[in-house]
């Protein structure tokens, strides 16, 4: 090839290369822009700070436990371990719990009308929403009829029936037992909650009563931890 031709082809190649690169860059998805304003960023920072505080507290508590282990004799160590195990089983919902709380009764609403009314049933969607709401209102422990809700409790719809912890729920009325640190607050929240309206659409009525002494049953299935793994996290400053 003549030198002039070669340079010409090279120049066209250069142009083509630039075009390809620009095209490639343009078709890639652009990076998401941060569109938060000052206030949103500030609240985000505050949230993170709160999280940091609570994490620091947790670290402090764990450090104290470790210190206790170090200082104690064999027998006392055993006692500390037993205490921790007891705490953990309680948290996991493997023990009966008694305390002050709220009892919710879900009943069907019957309306006097000529239309034929079906007997309403409780769907998992209802229950999921209600449980989420209860949790956000400060519920500590929840049990639906005789089924204790743990972190791994499934709520499913099987063949026209609602199953909790793989046990079918009886037909209405159903009782939901809720323990809370501050039962009065939870009770007040429930009086104005969205769930009441949402349940009413499907002809279900929620009535809440405050009670000082309710006992929640324990979760008596086996907790499947086969797929749970300890996450190894490299701490800052470890390396």
């Amino acid at each position, binding site marked *: 090839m003549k030198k002039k031709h*070669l340079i010409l082809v*090279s120049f066209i*190649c250069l142009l083509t*290369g630039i075009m390809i690169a620009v095209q490639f860059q*343009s078709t890639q998805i652009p990076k998401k822009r941060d569109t938060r304003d000052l206030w949103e960023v500030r609240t985000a920072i505050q949230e993170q700070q709160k999280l940091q505080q609570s994490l620091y507290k947790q670290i402090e508590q764990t450090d104290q436990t470790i210190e206790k282990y170090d200082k104690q004799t064999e027998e006392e160590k055993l006692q500390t371990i037993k205490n921790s195990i007891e705490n953990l089983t309680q948290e996991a919902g493997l023990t009966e719990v008694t305390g002050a709380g709220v009892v919710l009764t879900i009943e069907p609403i019957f309306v006097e009308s000529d239309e034929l009314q079906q007997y309403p049933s409780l769907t998992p969607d209802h229950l999921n929403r209600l449980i989420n709401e209860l949790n956000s209102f400060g519920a500590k422990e929840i049990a639906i009829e005789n089924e204790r809700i743990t972190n791994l409790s499934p709520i499913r719809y099987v063949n026209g029936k609602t199953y909790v912890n793989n046990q079918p729920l009886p037909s209405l009325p159903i009782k939901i037992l809720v323990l809370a640190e501050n039962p009065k607050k939870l009770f007040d929240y429930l009086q104005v909650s969205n769930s009441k309206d949402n349940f009413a659409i499907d002809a279900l009525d929620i009535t809440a009563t405050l009670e000082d002494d309710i006992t929640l049953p324990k979760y008596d299935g086996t907790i499947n931890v086969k797929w749970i793994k300890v996450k190894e996290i490299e701490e800052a400053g470890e390396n």
Partner: protein
Amino acid sequence: MWLPALFLVVGILLGFLSNITIPEEYANYLSISVLAAFDTLFGGIRAHLENKFDEKIFISGFFFNVSLAALLAFLGVQLGIDLYLAAVFAFGVRLFQNLSIIRRCFMENLSKHKKLEKFKRK
């Protein structure tokens, strides 16, 4: 022979480093232009192999094809017809044709070389 390839790489690098992006609406035009550029390049290689390379035709072909393709796409958008498909089709067919001719030329060259070597050995 390596100079065009080198320049292609340099062009791609330049494009990436310059961080230029074009709006999504115009991505169509550029894509068709890239196709036209490819078509011209392969056409040039083919012409070179057939000893028919003409720099004027090559250069004018490049710019004319690229702008015609973009124009066709623009016209298509205005009229509500996917006219750029016509360009894609035409360039695509030409690209394959050119490539097959380039391949054939290479094969012929290769077989010629072999025959020559055999001849020399005898």
